[in-house]
C-alpha cells in the first residue's frame, strides 16, 4: 500500500471532506484547495474504496448467469400463472354457483317474513292455521239453510212424525221410492 501522509493538521479537514463530500462551504473549499496533503489523503482513501468496489463488482459471466436464472424464473412463473388461470376461473365459478344454490337461500330471510302485501300469510301451513284460528270466528260463513233446518229440526223434533215431515221436506221424493 502507499505511504499515507499522516499530518494531524489535515485530519479534521479530511474527515469533514470524506463525510460531507465536496459540497462543503466555500471556506472549506478554499482550505482544501490550499492543502495538497488533504487532497492527497482524500485521493488515497477514495482509491482504496474504488478497489473495494471493483472487487465487489460481478463479472459479466456471473451476471449473465444470474440474469438467465431470473428470466427463467420469470417465465416459469408466468407460464404457471397462465396454466392455472383457467383452473382458478373455473373454481371461482363453481364456488359462486355453490354459494348461490346452497348458501344463499339459508342466508336470506324466510319467505314468510318477507312483506309481500299479505301473500306471506299463505306461505306455510302453520300460518294458514293461525290465520284460520284468528279469522274464522269473525268471518264464519252462515250454515246453508237446509243444514240449519236439518240440524235444528232434528234437535227440536218431538216425534217420529215430525222427523218424517222434516225428511219429506228435505227429500221430497223419499216417500215415492219407499
Amino acid at each position, binding site marked *: 500500500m502507499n505511504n499515507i501522509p499522516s499530518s494531524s493538521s489535515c485530519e479534521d479537514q479530511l474527515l469533514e471532506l470524506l463525510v460531507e463530500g465536496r459540497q462543503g462551504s466555500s471556506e472549506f473549499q478554499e482550505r482544501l484547495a490550499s492543502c495538497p496533503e488533504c487532497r492527497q489523503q482524500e485521493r488515497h482513501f477514495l482509491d482504496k474504496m474504488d478497489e473495494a*468496489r471493483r472487487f465487489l463488482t460481478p463479472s459479466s459471466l456471473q451476471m449473465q448467469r444470474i440474469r438467465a436464472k431470473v428470466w427463467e424464473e420469470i417465465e416459469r412463473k408466468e407460464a404457471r400463472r397462465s396454466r392455472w388461470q383457467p383452473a382458478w376461473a373455473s373454481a371461482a365459478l363453481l364456488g359462486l354457483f355453490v354459494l348461490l344454490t346452497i348458501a344463499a337461500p339459508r342466508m336470506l330471510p324466510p319467505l314468510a317474513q318477507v312483506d309481500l302485501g299479505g301473500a306471506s300469510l299463505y306461505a306455510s301451513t302453520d300460518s294458514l292455521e293461525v290465520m284460520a284460528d284468528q279469522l274464522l270466528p269473525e268471518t264464519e260463513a252462515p250454515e246453508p239453510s237446509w243444514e240449519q233446518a236439518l240440524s235444528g229440526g232434528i234437535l227440536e223434533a218431538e216425534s217420529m212424525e215430525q222427523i218424517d215431515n222434516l225428511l219429506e221436506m228435505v227429500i221430497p221424493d223419499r216417500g215415492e221410492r219407499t
Partner: protein
Amino acid sequence: MDHTTFERFLDRWQNDIYRMIRSRVNAPADAEDIMQDVLLKLYRGLDSFRGESQLKTWMYRLVRNAIADYYRNPWWKFNWVKERSFNDGSESRPAWEQHVDEDQPSALDAVLDKEQGEIILNLMDRLTPAEKEYFTLRFLDGFSLQQMSDATGHNLNTIKTHLYRAVKKMKTYLVEESG
C-alpha cells in the same frame, strides 16, 4: 413490465445491486441467490414504482429486506462460519469460459484488485455493525447523506456521528495495514 425495459434497467443497475448485496453477504453463492430474489421483486415492483422515493433508496430497502430474510434462514449460519471466500464463482466454470470474459481486467490486475478489495472488506469487518453499514452506504453504494437518511430512516446527525467514527477508524486501519 416488458422484458426490454427490464433488460435496460438491469444494464444500468445490476452492478450496483450486486455490490449492495455482496458487501453485506460473505458467501458469493448466497449473494447470487439473494440477487435473484431481489431482481424478481424488482421485476414485479418496478411497474408500481412511482418515484415517491428515490429508486436507489427503494432498491436498498429491497436488498436490506432480502438480506434480513437470508439471515433469518438458519442455513446462513453454515455459510457464515465458512472461511470468508471472495471468489466470484469462476472456479466452478470451465477454463474457456473464464478466458472469454473480455471485459475483465488482466489476470494480474484482477488478482491485485482482489487482494486489495479483500483487505479493505476485512478491515471494514472491524467496524461496529452501524458504522460498517453507514460506511458501506457512503463509500461502496455511493449514497449521499440525505439518501442514507431516507433509506435508513435515521436522522442526519446520527448518521454523521457514526460515519465520522467509521472513517477515522478506517483511516487508522489503512495506515496500520500499509505500515
